[in-house]
């Protein structure tokens, strides 16, 4: 075999062309926004956690401080304002629920294999996501108790 033959063989070779790939669109969104979405996931829990900690310190542990009292008054003010009162269920129910969904999808994956007609459910061991999911769930349950929704 001559060197030119190798050149010709390589030049005329039929190549695999993964032109029909679809994952390109799935990767694009997290690639361009992964930092923002992760930060949003954390921010969703900040306010409900502050509310829960304030409640815990004041009513369960009986600890008093001007800071805790200030936070409680702030939430009271929102709750009693007719224009802002809708924010309370948003902060204490919608935010933790969204955080729960985001974190659930981070450790639980669903894949449908068309060829085999199978739905694969994969649970990945991601302690942080599982912890945040459980924590969000606890906050949600806590604030869904009838007596606690009205701060």
């Amino acid at each position, binding site marked *: 075999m001559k060197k030119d033959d190798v050149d010709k063989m390589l030049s005329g070779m039929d190549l695999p062309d*993964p032109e029909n790939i679809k994952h390109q669109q*799935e*990767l694009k969104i997290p690639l361009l926004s992964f930092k923002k979405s992760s930060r949003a996931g954390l921010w969703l829990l900040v306010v409900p956690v502050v509310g829960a900690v304030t409640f815990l310190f004041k009513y369960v542990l009986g600890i008093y401080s001007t800071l805790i009292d200030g936070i409680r008054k702030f939430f009271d003010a929102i709750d009693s304002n007719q224009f802002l009162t809708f924010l309370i269920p948003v902060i204490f129910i919608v935010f933790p629920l969204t955080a729960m969904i985001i974190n659930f999808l981070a450790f639980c994956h669903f*894949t449908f294999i068309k060829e085999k007609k199978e739905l694969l459910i994969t649970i990945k061991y991601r302690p942080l996501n599982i912890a945040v999911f459980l924590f969000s769930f606890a906050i949600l349950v806590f604030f869904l108790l009838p007596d606690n929704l009205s701060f």
Partner: protein
Amino acid sequence: MNEEKLLKELDNDPHKFGEIYEAFYKKIFGYVFRRTMDYDAAKDIAAETFLKAYTGIAKFKYRNISVLYWLYRIATNELNKYFNSRKYMPESLSRIYEEYGVDITDYSNAETERIMLEEDLEKHREFMRINVLIKKLDIKYQEVISLRFFEQKSIKEIAVILNKKEGTVKSLLSRGIDKLKGNITRTKK
């Protein structure tokens, strides 16, 4: 796509990178897939390439050279890491996973796509046979041969991608083909 204009707009709106991504992702994925012949490795390396490009786009200075060549260079560097280590660890992807617990290459249709590409690869037995022999060559020959014959790049373009002189590329290509010829002859005996 006016790349020069787009690169200027990227300073104010980083999401304009999406246009670069849309235009070049398939080309880069195809290049990586043809070199690795491994779907999972190809999607990791392609994602790593675009993540590195996204975070480092400010360093890219437009000098009448397409962003595509820069993407090829990043992908080639990642491929070198992949071929030189037993267990390839894409830095940016690993960092995202560690910091945010998110695997951004975890596609919902990955299994279906893997099957489709593996079936397509099976139809190209001659390519697979030659590629196995190319992989036995030194990495510097693999790079030039795959860019020249699988990506149909000119000597000048390869020189830009690999940041080498055209003469060096010609010489590497010539020696690479010689060595490949030797490998082909040995397998036929």
